[in-house]
């Protein structure tokens, strides 16, 4: 496999509780290529297999059928070092605050890099950098107990805990689930900035189109364990009917533009933000007038 791809997935399938009366197929013949430095959104309804899929990428679920190459290495190969893989592929779980266990914020964020063997000043530098990336003031928060923090702050601590390991691929599984809209926007914005600043490959799992439209280069839509659609957000939102059938829909502003087009107004529907939509409508208006 070539080196330009961060992740290559071929014919990946997975069944939960295989060979029991409770067996249920979660993934079916997934094929996907993700370039280095790409921001990828993985979208799908609850139970579409997206969480199962991302857990394969750092070896938490062993590949039972199919192949996955991370940076050109087959992670299902015999003798492959899973520990190194987990340092390379950082995975932030849903509700990551539930995994926080240390007495101080510093100690909890340091858990990952400590397991990598870092100590002393180097360890502190990593924790400090990670906290800065998620906008947690190092001096103010490092000695506080995680129990005193708000939901949004705790979530940031948990994300920093994975960032501190300095992975080259960062996967976030529904990082905004259960947060209020303001905190959600903040966290998403920080993930976007993180991607810009560090240039690492980011996979963002979500069930909300609105969340990912502005951030992602590539959107992969999961439906019932298969990849139903993929493409850039602009391309993808042209498939409104399919997306609605899957139960995902498109951002409101895209719906407005598609509606205008339906009414015979020849606007360009490949827009992502309200600003772009406004510009496009004004331009159309001027041309017609």
């Amino acid at each position, binding site marked *: 496999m070539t080196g330009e791809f961060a992740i290559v997935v071929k014919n990946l399938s997975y069944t939960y509780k295989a060979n029991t*009366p409770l067996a249920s197929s979660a993934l079916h013949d997934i094929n996907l290529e993700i370039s280095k430095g790409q921001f990828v959104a993985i979208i799908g309804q609850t139970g579409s297999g997206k969480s199962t899929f991302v857990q394969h990428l750092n070896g*938490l679920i062993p590949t039972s059928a199919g192949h996955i190459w991370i940076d050109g290495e087959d992670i299902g190969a015999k003798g492959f070092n899973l520990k190194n893989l987990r340092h390379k592929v950082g*995975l932030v*779980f849903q509700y990551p605050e*539930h*995994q926080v*266990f240390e007495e101080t914020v510093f100690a909890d964020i340091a858990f*990952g890099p400590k397991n990598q063997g870092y100590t002393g000043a180097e360890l502190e530098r990593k924790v400090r950098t990670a906290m800065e990336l998620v906008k947690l003031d190092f001096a103010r928060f490092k000695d506080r107990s995680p129990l005193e923090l708000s939901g949004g702050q705790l979530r940031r601590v948990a994300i920093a*805990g*994975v960032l501190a390991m300095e992975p080259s691929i960062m996967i976030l599984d529904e990082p905004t689930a259960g947060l209020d809209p303001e905190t959600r926007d903040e966290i998403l914005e920080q993930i976007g900035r993180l991607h810009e600043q560090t240039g690492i490959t980011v996979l963002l799992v979500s069930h909300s189109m609105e969340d990912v439209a502005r951030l992602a280069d590539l959107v992969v839509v999961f439906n019932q364990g298969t990849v139903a659609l993929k493409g850039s957000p602009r391309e993808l939102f042209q498939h409104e009917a399919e997306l609605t059938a899957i139960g995902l829909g498109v951002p409101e502003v895209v719906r407005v533009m598609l509606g205008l087009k339906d009414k015979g107004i020849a606007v360009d529907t490949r827009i992502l933000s309200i600003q772009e939509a406004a510009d496009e409508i004004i331009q159309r208006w001027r041309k017609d007038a």
Partner: protein
Amino acid sequence: MLDGITLGQYIPGESIVHRLDPRTKIIISLLLIILLFLVDSYVGYLLVGLGIMGIIALSGMPFRFVLRGLRPLRIILILTFVLHLFMNEGRELARLGPLVMTYEGLHRAILMTARLSLLVLATSLLTLTTSPIRLTDGLESLLNPFKRFGMPAHELAMMMTIALRFIPTLFEETEKIMKAQKARGADFESGKLTERAKNLVPLLVPLFVSAFRRADELAIAMEARCYRGGEGRTKLRQLEMESTDYWSLTIVCVVSLVLAVLF
């Protein structure tokens, strides 16, 4: 690692075993447990084992799946076997340093391991074929006569269902936290015993926190739906004993009695 746990899990089905009244099944399980402590010979265990296999066959559940319930207990089973093998006095069979293996030990080891395995199978068969709601209903109705002596039958039954209901949830939670910590480089599988115990801290702390949080949430959810205990509470589904219940009870009673007396 935790995938194989069948204890406390319910697999829906339509077999005759599934349809039996929960009271019948509880009594049968109790009889089997008592029987397993009375029987004390190879033939006896073999026959009880065959009986349990018969019930599994009737329930339509794959044998291998039910047997998997023993897997999490394999360490206890092996320990039981080894301890009995070496700790009994008698005629020497073999010698391992200061440890003496005896014929009597081997005999007890086989019996004890068989007893433990069959106990687990008999009880897991009850929970595998009975939904938690029916199980509580059955327990409550069986404990009702003791209410007169101040036994909180409803509360006990409720507590048991909740405990049973949360076994799989807690296992799922454990698995989830384990994965999350593994993703941060935690190691649960290697190292010395003391190290391994220390490595469990990142797993146990969040697990306890979430168990308490869940308990709190459940209590609030129950109160929000005006739950206030057993007094004056009616049931949507009344339990009714049918002829199959009486038949199976009679058969198991007679067979148990015979086995207990003979073996």
